[in-house]
């Protein structure tokens, strides 16, 4: 049986992240991307928001938040926890694709798909009005009851 760890990134900072949910007992790591942030120099407010969101998403399980080179830190975390499989939620960011490629040179990676608002398999739409006309009916159909925290209310 493989031993999974979860890599949580900034596009999916929820305790209901698809990779976290798929492996509720797996250790998980979030990494502040040092080379990227050195260049982007976002405001502190943004980093604080991300930090608070990551902490809460990882509560209740073995986890670490780190600062460094993302791929190196994820691999190091994986080794430290005896892992041999990295689980992560998909992102459309080109940087995510690059990191995925680097990780895959070292370890098996499983990418989980977060639930979309609507399905879409065509080429990217050029105008929102065109997109909305095609997806409106599906967008207005519920697929569940909403966040589990609010279901009792």
């Amino acid at each position, binding site marked *: 049986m493989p031993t999974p760890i979860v890599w949580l990134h900034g596009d999916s900072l929820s305790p209901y992240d698809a990779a976290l949910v798929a492996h509720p007992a797996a250790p998980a790591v979030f990494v502040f991307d040092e080379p990227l942030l050195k260049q982007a120099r976002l405001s*502190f407010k943004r980093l604080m928001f991300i930090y608070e*969101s990551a902490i809460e998403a990882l509560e209740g399980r073995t986890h670490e938040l780190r600062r460094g080179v993302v791929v190196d830190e994820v691999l190091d975390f994986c080794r430290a926890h005896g892992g041999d499989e990295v689980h992560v939620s998909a992102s*459309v*960011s080109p940087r995510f694709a690059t990191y995925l490629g680097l990780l895959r040179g070292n370890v098996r990676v499983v990418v989980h798909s977060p639930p979309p608002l*609507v399905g879409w398999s065509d080429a990217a739409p050029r105008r929102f009005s065109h997109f909305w006309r095609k997806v*409106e009916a599906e967008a207005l159909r519920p697929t569940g009851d*909403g966040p589990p925290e609010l279901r009792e209310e």
Partner: protein
Amino acid sequence: MKLETNHATRAERAAYLAGALEGLYSGEAVPAATIGGRRAAIARLRQFDVTRYGTTRNHVTKRGISFLSPYIRHGVLALAEIRDYILTRFGAGRDTTKYINELAWRQFWQLVYAEYGNRIHQDIEPPKVPRNGTRRSLPDDILQATTGLVCMDESLRELYREGYMHNHARMWFAAYLQHWRGEDWRDGAELFYTHLLDGDPASNSLSWQWVGSTFSHKPYYFNRQNVEKFSDGEYCKRCPLASGGCPFDATYEQLARDLFGMSQEELEQGGQRRGQQSRR
């Protein structure tokens, strides 16, 4: 380097993070009032009343909006979760539809980003109006929020202090910076990305291009009447330029000629022709 996460208060947490991430951020190490995390996101969702969203969402000072964008951008709440909750709680209707329509913009930008990748940070299409902006550092009055225009300066101050700007105010500012000040949209997009808690590469760069006409069939612009209507005159009441010198105080027809050198009608038609010519 491993970061600590066990602080008793938010102030302690912020002080720790300021040191732990030293060299990775710009400006003062002061957090926004908006707290990150799922619990805060759920609290905002619970507070949100979609009733009258359609008529109040564009009102910059009344703000009948959900304030969920930072949580959506970072995946703290999924679009589908929000849609399902709003439909369950408020049922179908005009306001619910409008709100879900706005949620769909998020997926739209992401689909474009998935296909275009980093090309979203360059012009997607030729501009439909003459443009002379060149890349440079933004002027001090923008960075200091001292343009003298209350409708701009108040929004900029909120951006710098809280990492937030109302969507309609973003459109006004993006149009002002590009069309009135002649700045390159990428400099404005960088400013927003630095500060907005919901700063997302796709939503941000593509929205700036939508305003500028490199990802739309014509540029977005506005006038004083629009500012007055969607702020109940709050800004103009306090603006020293309201009695003379307001650059937005004109008809759309006049502004089309002043800003773009063409009539409104030409903007509609000429813009499209220009785009077709360029594509050939």
